[in-house]
């Protein structure tokens, strides 16, 4: 067991008001205004939802994709604490921070979409809750995971506010919360795929499968690493910090390994089910399938050489494309591949999209505010330049 002496996390500092945070603030206000209209007049006034497409981007983007983007914390924590790769420790806190807000907002975002939101507590209340429902599993696991993540992240606040006693107590039990923090996402990220099994033949054969839980889980873990690459490059550029290439280069290899497992499972399943033939039909679904697959294959092409993995721009693009692949997998499975009968169509309305942008804006703004004011990113002057 090698010991890893890392730079301790420290606040980045700097001004909170900038053109970026201002734009984020405007986006958030716009989303809040639209939500006010939604709660007074109903879902139909601001969304294009209909009975042929009762789930739109507020479910697919804000919750299904949003929580998959938030798998960075889970993926990196698993790497560091379960696979004992201590060298990645400096990535844990920033990844966990992004996950924390991704999940918290996914949880809050569900409320905007619920038509009878005042009853939301029924989903966890004995007498109402139905364990046969996949959505019950998703709701229970995500709710619990949000609490677990706040506990995992709490030392950051305790350090900032000098609460040494609380920090020590939490740290003693931390191994259990870390373990819980790996099992819960495995459960609900897979269940987000299982949600579609009950839809039966309404889901196109390119996406309907009994192994959907496995496909969604592996893709979420892979996306977790992609998000970390994406985020680290962006944070380095935004804060003019040194990019942690000594961590990101080997991390990108792990990401490619997981991506290989994902593609093997994805195509193995299509072949075993005899569904691959649908990919060669002249349909929108087939075209979207190849677009999705191209995004998943692209990182292999971009990062196949060792030198390419040392190139921050390539890592950033590869990470972004992999994230896009995960986005397309989810949009395809939930919307493009969903057909409940003739005569229905759906494309999100502008207000609907603005709410989704607002949700992501809250995440980014929170990330900026907290990394500037709380000890999350590794102290810059201690980052060694030799790599």
């Amino acid at each position, binding site marked *: 067991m090698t010991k*890893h002496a890392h730079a301790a996390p420290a606040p980045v500092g700097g001004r909170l008001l900038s053109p970026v945070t201002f734009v984020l603030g405007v986006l958030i206000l716009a989303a809040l205004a639209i939500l006010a209209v939604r709660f007074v007049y109903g879902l139909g006034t601001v969304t294009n939802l209909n009975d042929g497409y009762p789930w739109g981007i507020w479910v697919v983007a804000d919750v299904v994709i949003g929580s998959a983007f938030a798998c960075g914390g889970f993926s990196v924590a698993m790497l*560091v604490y379960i696979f004992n790769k201590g060298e990645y420790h400096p990535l844990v806190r920033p990844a966990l921070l992004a996950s924390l807000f991704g999940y918290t907002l996914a949880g809050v975002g569900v409320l905007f979409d619920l038509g009878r939101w005042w009853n939301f507590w029924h989903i966890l209340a004995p007498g109402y809750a139905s364990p046969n429902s996949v959505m019950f599993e998703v709701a229970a696991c995500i709710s619990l995971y949000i609490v677990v993540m706040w506990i995992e992240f709490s030392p950051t606040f305790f350090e900032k506010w000098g609460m040494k006693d609380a920090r020590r107590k939490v740290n003693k039990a931390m*191994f259990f919360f870390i373990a819980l923090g790996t099992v819960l996402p495995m459960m609900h990220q897979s269940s987000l795929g299982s949600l579609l099994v009950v839809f039966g033949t309404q889901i196109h054969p390119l996406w309907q499968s009994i192994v959907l839980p496995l496909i969604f889980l592996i893709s979420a873990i892979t996306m977790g690493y992609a998000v970390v690459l994406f985020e680290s490059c962006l944070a380095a550029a935004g804060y003019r910090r040194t990019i942690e290439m000594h961590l990101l280069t080997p991390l990108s290899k792990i990401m490619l390994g997981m991506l290989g497992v994902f593609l093997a499972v994805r195509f193995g399943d299509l072949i075993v089910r005899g569904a691959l033939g649908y990919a060669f039909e002249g349909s929108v679904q087939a075209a979207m399938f190849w677009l999705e697959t191209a995004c998943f294959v692209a990182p292999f092409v971009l990062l196949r050489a060792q030198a390419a993995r040392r190139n921050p721009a390539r890592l950033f693009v590869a990470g972004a494309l992999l994230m896009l692949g995960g986005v397309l997998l989810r949009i395809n499975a939930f919307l493009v591949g969903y057909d409940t009968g003739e005569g229905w169509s759906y494309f999100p309305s502008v207000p609907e999209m603005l709410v989704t942008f607002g949700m992501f804006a809250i995440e980014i703004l929170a990330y900026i505010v907290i990394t500037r004011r709380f000890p999350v990113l590794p102290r810059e002057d201690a980052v060694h330049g030799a790599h």
Partner: protein
Amino acid sequence: MASRRDFLKRALAGSAAVAGAATCTDASARGNAQISPDAVGLLFDSTLCIGCKACVAACKDANGLPLDYATPIEAAWDVPVDTTAKTFNVIKAYVDGSGMHKDQVQDGYAFMKSSCLHCVDPSCVSACPVSAMTKDPVTGIVGYDPDACIGCRYCVAACPFGIPKYDYDSPTGKIGKCELCRHRLPEGKYAACAEVCPTGATLFGKVSELKAEAKRRLALTPGAETTWPRGNLTTGDQPSWNGPAPVYVQHIYGEKEVGGTQMLKLAAVPFDKLGHRPLPERSFSSQSETLQHTLYGGLVLPLAVLGAMTWVAKRNVKHDDEGGDHD
């Protein structure tokens, strides 16, 4: 390289163990749900339907539903073209070419009733996370409780027949669907659509009796004079009438589709032309629930994984503490 291979090896070993454990718990697998012996339902015979829509009006009346229209100009009339949160039953028409001949595929027309089929193993009930959609253990009626509902619309998305609908125009929108007039059953009445049907195209009764009646009809010689019951088949409350038998498509829709439904349908035009896609016999809810209970039955698998993760994390977090001055 060695470290990555090691990582992948562990990852694969982990997923293999999980997959192995998952396939071992066959006890949680379930087949299609079985129908209650006292289940009630409807038999709709497209060849008897004359498209008068008395059932559509009676349904609105019995369920206290408002008019449904697409544009303000139509506001004086109830003109639903499909079921909605405010319309639980519609009669749809199939028309081809000149549309001159009843129950003919070419240049013909036919009617089809669209309303809840009351599946024996309903997807909406399996999907509902808060028990707002329920299946009555005796009558088998799929009912809805708006006071329990959270409005997630998983039932709307899951139903293979596109039946539950949500009211997007209201801030407190509810799901709307046929509940087979279950509120009228204690009064000794039955489904309003069957009660008003002048030809017996929609017939109410015990599913076992409706199925026997459907089989009798399919066995008739086309053109042969036969008796057509009306209203409630089980109680025989309305007089029947006599008429010739049509040329049926030899298929009882709902007998086997997704594990069977309590509404059975007969027609002389193929069902896929009447908006009824072919569906497998295995219910989607049994597949979904088998998957969920295999993974989560007794929480055995999650607790086993949690135990393993806790053990590993405890070891590694300790090492980590020794390695630096922070967690």
